């Protein structure tokens, strides 16, 4: 069968696994976006910049405070989430009564400002960040670096935890109720604005966490997020805006689709995601897992 399509099985398995690893990043980033959109109705275009801030955060922590990767994994997302919450309080909260479009424009503008600031101070080329788990295992069909295996496991774990927290926990049920009927939930004595701020911070923290995980693999540079964000938006749209499970499944799925494209026609690998998006939107305008809003 493999001879028929002209690709050695080794190459195919290798690319599938790599696709899964890239999918892990898509899944984590789109998860944060989905949470924010689902609960706040804000299309958070700052997400890419916040992912970049996570990666830069770990670099800054290492170079100025000597914090190792494992510490940064915890601290950097917290700091970036705090910055995110400040942005939500000061800017975003003024836009909730307006159309989606205003939130999108504002977050896009904030992203440009943040990226511009980082470029001003750290240059366009970026910074090196050492791999915390060097080495790897030879699987026969490919060499798998240990760190990449860790990324897949870690992101799967995070995705499942987030899904459980939102769909199965009491806090999650408050959140979901607050989206449907904010007035009623407020009447039960729950501080809805604070909950929204914390939710935004949580989504942003997820982006920053993905950024910290990305630092040892990708160049830590001010524009790293803007490259990724378009693909991640496509992932969220394909999965269904606001659907947590949808974004995770689509994230991993599209990583694999992209990996396969790299085997057969690498030049199209940056386009294939958008092709899928166009097809899905034609057939199911609400996305694979979403309900039409």
């Amino acid at each position, binding site marked *: 069968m493999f001879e028929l399509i002209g690709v050695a099985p080794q190459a195919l398995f290798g690319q599938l696994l790599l696709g899964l690893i890239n999918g892990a990043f898509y899944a984590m980033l789109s998860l944060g976006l989905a949470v924010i959109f689902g609960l706040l109705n804000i299309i958070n275009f700052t997400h890419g910049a916040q992912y970049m801030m996570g990666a830069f955060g770990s670099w800054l922590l290492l170079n100025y405070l000597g914090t190792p990767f494992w510490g940064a994994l915890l601290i950097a997302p917290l700091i970036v989430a705090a910055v995110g919450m400040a942005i939500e309080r000061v800017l975003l909260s003024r836009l909730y009564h307006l159309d989606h479009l205003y939130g999108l424009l504002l977050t896009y503008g904030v992203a440009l400002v943040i990226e511009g600031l980082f470029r001003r101070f750290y240059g366009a*080329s970026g910074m090196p960040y050492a791999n915390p788990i060097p080495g790897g295992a030879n699987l026969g069909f490919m060499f798998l670096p240990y760190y990449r295996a860790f990324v897949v496991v870690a992101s799967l774990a995070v995705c499942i935890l987030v899904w459980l927290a939102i769909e199965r926990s009491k806090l999650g049920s408050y959140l979901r109720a607050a989206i449907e009927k904010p007035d009623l939930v407020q009447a039960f004595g729950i501080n809805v604005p604070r909950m929204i701020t914390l939710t935004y911070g949580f989504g942003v923290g997820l982006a920053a966490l993905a950024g910290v995980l990305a630092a040892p693999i990708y160049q830590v540079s001010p524009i790293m997020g803007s490259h990724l964000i378009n693909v991640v938006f496509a992932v969220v749209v394909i999965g269904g805006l606001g659907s947590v499970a949808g974004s995770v499944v689509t994230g991993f799925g599209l990583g694999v689709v992209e990996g396969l494209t790299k085997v057969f026609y690498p030049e199209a690998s940056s386009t294939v995601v958008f092709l899928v998006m166009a097809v899905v939107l034609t057939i199911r305008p609400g996305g694979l897992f979403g309900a039409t809003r």
Partner: protein
Amino acid sequence: MSRLGLLLRAGCAALAIASAAPAAEAGPDDPVKIGVLTDMSGPYSDVGGPGSVEAVKMAIEDFGGSTLGKPVVIVSGDHQNKADIGSNIARKWFDVDGVDMVTDLTNSAVALAVQALAKDQKKINLVSSTHTTELTNKACSPYGVHWTFDAYALSAGTAGAVAREGAKKWYFISADYTFGRNLEENAEKILAKYGAQTIGKSRHPLNNSDFSSNLLQAQASGADVIAVANTGNDLSNLMKQAAEFQIGKSQKLVMLSAFVTDIHAMGLDNAKGSVLTEAFYWNRDADSRKWSERFFKKMGKMPTMIQAGSYSATLHYLAAVNAAGSKDADKVMQKMRDTPINDIFWKNGRIREDGVMTHDMLLIQVKSPEQSKEPWDYYDVVGVIPGEQAFQPLSESACPLIKR
């Protein structure tokens, strides 16, 4: 009308008034004006950008600040890597502001557009960056010089040196646009001369963050050498991931185009041992070191060959203006061609009729972290490629200006 629409209209009207305002016509008695047209904040801003502007300022300062009895004026512009923006700025500089010479011109598309414009307007453009060999072939200009390096010099230097050592099987990973293909083609021409062959290639889109797929294919191909033809963040990402997949252990990794700032960005751990070609290295000798340290004090990083090229081109231009006693483009170009270029960067440089400035190129091996003694101590200069061999032979050039 919406408020946004109103705002846009008001803006357009203001712009129209501003551009219609009568400008003092620039004449031959005006001071010499130099324009640095570069990428001020985009992907090439570290290799050219504000550093190039600073280098030109240093050149003017070192020249004494004035020529033809008037202080030299410098202007700078951000072309944002768009050919139309670049040529609009250049057109305004030439038509309204009386700019006499434009330099830097990072980004091939911008350089080609501005060179064509400068040729029409009889203005001088000294391209201190940019890979495309087109500038000195079909698109060559009597007023345009390609100063620092081109795709031919970089790939010929590196591929030639590695092929000479006996590496026969090559695999290319290239950025899927003119720049990557140009480097790849030039390298393949050289490989053919040494009997080496390409056994595979894979291309990737610009601004691709994950290269594991390309690297895995290269690893599986059994090639002796994996040649990389991309730049900026793509290059850093690729090298970082090559180290992760332990590619350099059994196969040789070669960067067809890299700047010292790229090595700084990816870290010696990821770059050690690779071979590359540069026109300039800050720590080559006492002179270049002294100059680079001055530059470092202002910019906080060591100069790239592009920035050194902007300095050198400006200095040579100002000397030619002085010697010609005029800023007339024909006279100045004649002086520039007649005088060999001997400055702290380049010895025995010469401007050919096709616009190539030939000079020695440096063959470089990147140090390991243990060998590096101080910040920015990244290179071992392992060889010097003489100017006559480093650049495309005049006989192969497609420039119509060459008298055959």
